[in-house]
């Protein structure tokens, strides 16, 4: 019996594939394979004319299977599935051979690459022969979106979705939203203050009827899938009644306990009952139970006595909230590189060596010095050094460029000059001023008096034993000399790093991380918000270092992704589930505990296993374990995979 009519389409991808793999040889090879009735090659198979070739052959030659040898199916499988569907062929009758990412791009030798491409095409044709038509299924979508992280990315995404008329839950771990941006002083290149542009947005978040704001809260568990995530959130006890509290701040004034304020990066103090900063949203304090005298000794309760509306609740417990969501946006931000891991920078050893966020707090009018740039002893510095690339562009730490540090350094230089009379030495490896109006800002600051840009990496910070001044060692690569520059303050522009719990968070949301530890986008250029987990999107610096404009852009982009899901109202779920053959199943029940989704149950009446297709995600673990071959993973069944194995081994 003749097999189904198969068409093979070999893509050159410009020179990406054709530059390595012999296109004519591959096309002719495919034409000779059994059941192949047409084999063509074309410069760009994904283009309209390329797709038209496939569509025309389906219609005119009555193709029953299509094999496209081109890029990764992760790239263009949807494109070619759609092309088949348009021409009336069931999209599950299309198979791809990945001869770009997994062949032409990774192979040195052209002859070996061509041979490998043949093996991959043979494998795909073999599988295609055994493919069967499948119908997509749709399931309804919960209209709510969960956003994790209340920095500028999460805030932007929340507002966009809320303004589009959809409901949002914004979950933030800290007592206030605002994230790292709330700590900043002026922002480059326009020098508007971070609070001035951020706080109106924070207030809008708190006031928007479509936004449920959960601060001091963390996501504990995520189950389900796109359109139907079930999420457990722990709302930690603030120890106050938020409805009664009017944010007057009397409790914070009277609390006798002082501890370092995390928000001030260790430069200022806060009380045990506190709001992290004056513009906090919500403007309601939390009691830090680790440091509160009452929780430690059972005595004190001063805050309770002085609270006018009687809002203090010492016995409040954590609240567990479970909610369904259609889409999730992870916008968990970054952590600054800890410069104390490199002793050469003197951070933690010398008082006046500070990192970038500490400088932001010093310079900030609501910071610990009221916006004055002062040394630890309260005096004004006479000379300040700014070091770029601390922990970034350095194979000892992070290889990547942290992207914002050149611009923040230029900004720091300007702010130091604006507020003090100190000379500024800016030690850079390369000056990367990549954004809109950035180069102009840099040029402006270069022209300012007493700012010296020195091309060279700040190698070491020492203390002059005689004068007590800090000495920064640098090789001035433009002059070709080594220099030791005496300064009073050193600002280490430390890198943006993934948060230390990023692995745990990635696992919780079923997303992956790139080698640098940041969350992995689906496609670096074309799908920067999508992740491998459908319905979970990423935004902001959890994906990679970026500045505020890019973060806001990505936050809005992630909102669009989430809206796409919730407005559609339904999602397509894969029909590539498992199924049981009732005649083959012996009822041994080995498969039942193997299923991670409890999708397999035992039909007592018939004495066989059965798969609940709504729960099955199609991993195929059951099929691999069924001793009687009764369980079949659709689209990846034994016959199809055996045929593929024969195909790759034949060449």
């Amino acid at each position, binding site marked *: 019996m003749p097999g189904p009519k198969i068409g093979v389409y070999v893509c050159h991808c410009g020179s990406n594939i054709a530059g390595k793999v012999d296109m004519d040889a591959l096309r002719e090879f495919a034409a000779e394979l059994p059941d192949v009735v047409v084999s063509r090659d074309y410069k760009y198979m994904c283009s309209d004319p390329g797709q038209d070739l496939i569509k025309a052959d389906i219609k005119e030659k009555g193709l029953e299977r299509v094999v496209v040898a081109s890029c990764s199916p992760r790239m263009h499988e949807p494109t070619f599935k759609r092309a088949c569907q348009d021409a009336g062929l069931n999209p599950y009758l299309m198979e791809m051979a990945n001869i770009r*990412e997994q062949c032409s791009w990774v192979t040195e030798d052209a*002859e*070996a690459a061509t041979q490998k491409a*043949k093996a991959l095409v043979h494998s795909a044709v073999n599988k295609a022969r055994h493919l069967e038509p499948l119908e997509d299924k749709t399931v309804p979508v919960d209209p709510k979106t969960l956003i994790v992280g209340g920095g500028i990315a999460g805030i932007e995404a929340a507002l966009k979705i809320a303004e589009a008329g959809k409901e949002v839950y914004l979950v933030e771990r800290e007592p206030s939203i605002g994230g790292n941006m709330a700590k900043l002083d002026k922002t480059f290149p326009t020098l508007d203050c971070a609070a001035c542009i951020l706080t109106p947005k924070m207030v809008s978040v708190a006031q928007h009827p479509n936004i449920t704001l959960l601060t001091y809260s963390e996501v504990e568990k995520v189950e389900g899938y796109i359109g139907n995530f079930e999420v457990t959130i722990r709302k930690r006890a603030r120890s106050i009644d938020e409805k009664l509290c009017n944010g007057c701040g009397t409790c914070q004034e009277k609390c006798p306990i002082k501890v370092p304020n995390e928000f001030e990066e260790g430069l200022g103090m806060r009380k045990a009952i506190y709001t992290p900063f004056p513009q906090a949203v919500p403007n309601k304090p939390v009691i830090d139970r680790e440091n509160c005298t009452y929780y430690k000794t059972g005595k004190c309760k001063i805050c309770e006595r002085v609270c006018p509306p009687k809002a203090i609740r010492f016995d409040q417990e954590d609240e567990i909230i479970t909610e369904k969501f259609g889409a999730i946006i992870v916008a968990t931000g970054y952590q600054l590189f800890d410069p104390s891991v490199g002793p050469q920078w003197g951070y933690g050893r010398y008082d006046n060596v500070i990192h970038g966020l500490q400088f932001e707090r010093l310079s900030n009018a609501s910071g610990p010095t009221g916006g004055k740039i002062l040394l630890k002893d309260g005096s004004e510095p006479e000379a300040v050094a700014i070091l770029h690339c601390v922990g970034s562009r350095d194979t000892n730490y992070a290889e990547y460029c942290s992207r914002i540090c050149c611009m923040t350094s230029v900004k720091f230089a300007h702010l130091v000059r604006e507020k003090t009379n100190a000379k500024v030495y800016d030690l850079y490896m390369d000056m990367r001023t990549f954004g809109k109006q950035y180069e102009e800002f840099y040029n402006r600051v270069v022209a300012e008096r007493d700012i010296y840009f020195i091309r060279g990496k700040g190698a070491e910070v020492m203390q002059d034993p005689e004068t007590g001044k800090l000495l920064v060692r640098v090789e001035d690569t433009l002059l070709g000399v080594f220099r030791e520059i005496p300064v009073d303050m050193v600002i280490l522009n430390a890198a943006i790093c993934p948060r230390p719990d990023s692995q745990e968070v990635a696992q919780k949301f079923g997303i992956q991380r790139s080698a640098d530890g940041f969350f992995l986008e689906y496609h670096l250029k074309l799908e920067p918000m999508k992740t491998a987990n459908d319905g979970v999107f990423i935004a902001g610096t959890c994906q990679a270092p970026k500045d505020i404009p890019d973060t806001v852009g990505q936050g809005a982009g992630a909102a669009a992704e989430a809206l796409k899901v919730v407005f559609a109202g339904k999602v397509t779920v894969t029909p590539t589930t498992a199924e049981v053959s009732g005649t083959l199943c012996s009822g041994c029940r080995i498969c039942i505990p193997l299923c991670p989704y409890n999708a397999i149950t035992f039909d007592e009446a018939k004495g066989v296993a059965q798969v609940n297709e709504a729960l099955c995600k199609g991993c*195929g673990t059951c099929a*691999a374990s069924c001793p009687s071959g009764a369980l079949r*993973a659709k689209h990846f069944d034994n016959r199809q995979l055996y045929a593929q194995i*024969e195909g790759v081994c034949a060449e």
Partner: protein
Amino acid sequence: MTQAGSPKSQAAAGEGWEPKVVAFLCNWCSYTGADLAGISRLKYPANLRIIRVMCSGRVSPAFVLKAFHEGADGVLVGGCHPGDCHYLEGNYKTLKRKLVFERLLEQFGIEPGRFRLEWISGGEGDKFARVAEELVKAVRELGPLGSTAERLGRADGLALRAEGGGGNA
């Protein structure tokens, strides 16, 4: 067992022999990692050919044996790192299976060095290329897997023991 343009029979193996390695990669992590190797233009031997499955848990021991039977000299199974599995725990099932399966392979006369299970994330293009390189090298050193008859001979008394064991276990 031949490379394009150099048709040499296996009997004349020696110089012309090129090992074949089949890699079963899970769609979410390892296959993505292999794509990343490509996107990063890392180079690894063309001897390794990839078959996509949705989860490493789908890789039945029968697939591995089938690959060896069809002439593969080595087999790689790639899954997500523990805790990262797209299907929660498919990779653990694969790991458990591997421990039993490796003993079975030896009974078939297949050296353990020809089979490898690796956790490769979507961000580990470099790891994928390295593993491919290492496995092809290891298999090259082991030489061709040879025919079933040869294999059974190599398994010494093990084949006999299996026969004597009776039953179909």
